[in-house]
């Protein structure tokens, strides 16, 4: 029962990971750039939501507004920072995204300071009990919102003309250019969508775990998620996000206490630290050894 309880929390957190990872995959697919700033967008989304509620807006309106602002910001960074780097090597562009992350952190530090902030409740406080498992409204709402958005986003990607142009750009950028798709605009759209997903994900995480600059580290968890999912697979990112969320929760609740108990009995070691933060990378190493293309990825094959 305890493990199930943990799994519920894990699924909720994992679905938020998936949301954030989707954005990274989206940008990677259509421009080949790994966006290191994704954690920064998540953090900024949460801070903007917090800022808007602290000037007196109702939390739901603040959240919606913040997501809209994030969308604009995503488009703006692509146009101002990445478009001028069109002909630069991909590595240089990735370094630029790292710069964006650092800038965001600096701005948030300047405005909101380094301390942990109590995030305003986005959802009613309370919980329901289902055959012995407690689920707070917070967790349920985070899961439902993430699930609906993931599904909605995948549908958008597969069934609309804009989604089709995104897929065409992802399939072969040069061919997309040749058949008359404005590829730069497609990349702008990807950044917009990605920043919006991250902004929402960040606000949801803050509502579960509180808000601080450390939230930007979520970007680092998102990378194992997309590598596990196979870099270019959107459904893969969703599944990997859920797996990682559950694994972290179970590590935190079961594995860490068990190891610590064992170590205290037999050695002088008192604590193993935050083992759940190590798990994503341990899993990452394992998957890279066994299945380098990720769980849902396809092997690259070049036609000659």
């Amino acid at each position, binding site marked *: 029962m305890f493990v199930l309880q943990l799994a519920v929390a894990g699924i909720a957190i994992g679905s938020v990971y998936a949301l954030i990872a989707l954005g990274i995959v989206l940008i990677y697919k259509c421009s080949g750039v790994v966006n290191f700033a994704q954690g920064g967008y998540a953090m900024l989304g949460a801070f903007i939501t917090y800022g808007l509620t602290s000037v007196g807006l109702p939390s739901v309106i603040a959240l919606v507004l913040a997501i809209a602002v994030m969308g604009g910001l995503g488009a703006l960074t692509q146009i101002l920072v990445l478009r001028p780097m069109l002909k630069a090597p991909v590595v240089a562009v990735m370094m630029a995204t790292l710069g964006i992350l650092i800038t965001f952190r600096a701005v948030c530090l300047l405005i909101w300071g380094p301390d942990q902030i109590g995030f305003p409740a986005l959802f009613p406080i309370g919980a329901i009990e289902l055959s012995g498992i407690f689920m707070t409204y917070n967790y349920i709402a985070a899961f439902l919102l993430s699930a609906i958005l993931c599904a909605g986003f995948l549908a958008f990607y597969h*069934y*609309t*003309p*804009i989604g*089709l*142009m995104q*897929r*065409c750009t992802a*399939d*072969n950028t040069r*061919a*997309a*250019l*040749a*058949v*008359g*798709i*404005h590829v730069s605009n497609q990349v702008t759209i990807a950044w917009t969508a990605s920043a919006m997903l991250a902004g929402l994900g960040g606000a949801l995480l803050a509502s579960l775990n509180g808000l601080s600059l450390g939230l930007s580290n979520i970007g680092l968890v998102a990378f194992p998620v997309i590598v596990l999912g196979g870099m270019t697979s959107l459904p893969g990112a969703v599944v990997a996000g859920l797996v990682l969320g559950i694994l972290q929760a179970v590590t935190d609740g079961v594995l860490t206490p068990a190891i610590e108990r064992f170590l205290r009995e037999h050695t002088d070691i008192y604590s193993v630290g935050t083992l759940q933060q190590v798990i994503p990378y341990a899993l990452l190493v394992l998957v890279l050894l066994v299945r380098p293309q990720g769980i849902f990825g396809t092997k690259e094959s070049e*036609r000659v």
Partner: protein
Amino acid sequence: MLKARDVTVRFGGVVAVGGMSIDVHAGEIVGLIGPNGAGKTTFINAVSGTYVPTQGTISWRDEDIVGHSPSRLARIGVGRTFQNVASLNDLTVLDVVKVGRSVHGHSRGLREFLCGSRADDEALTERLLEPLGLADHRHSPLQMLSYGHRKAVDIARALASEPDLLLLDEPVAGVAPAEAFALAGFVKQVRDLLGCAVVMVEHKMDVVMSTCDRVVVMAEGCKIFDGSGEAAQSDAEVRRVYLGD
């Protein structure tokens, strides 16, 4: 409609196209022929925005189009196909055709732009994929198709944008003779239906003769002949270029 004057494309010291001029009118199918290396594809690339000519002017409906990007050209009704089939892999046949439809400029409601429509899929299948023999493959990814089918998909994609000027770069090269004539016949049907102008680069003379209203012959980057197909075959200069002295 299409007016190219003195178009020159240089790559370093190599003159690929040197002073090429051509007029193409609405509803006309022009065959652009010439020996290998004559600059036919380079010229098409210059018209369709892939290359920017070093010199010369190209106008389409009195609008200067030199330096326009392919996406901009697609919106003002210039469509093209490729000699080497655009190498998309994972998209399905229907997807590729819908991409062709999405990039053109005919304004549509925001709702349709966001939602797409099932009726559209049916219409595209019936109007474009059936005649090209692709209806059964409409949900196959492009990389699963044969070369001939991929070529047909590329033509369907270009036609889906309902172009007013269609540039075909070797549409039937490497395609079996029977299919080649079917493809060429379809291009003619489309011209009759849409009234679009077509410029067709092609080596297969029997296809060119049966499809084109007019033939333009290029050699070493310049135009050496402009006239009917029959006249081209008896022209002394054309014979010299093709057959040697």
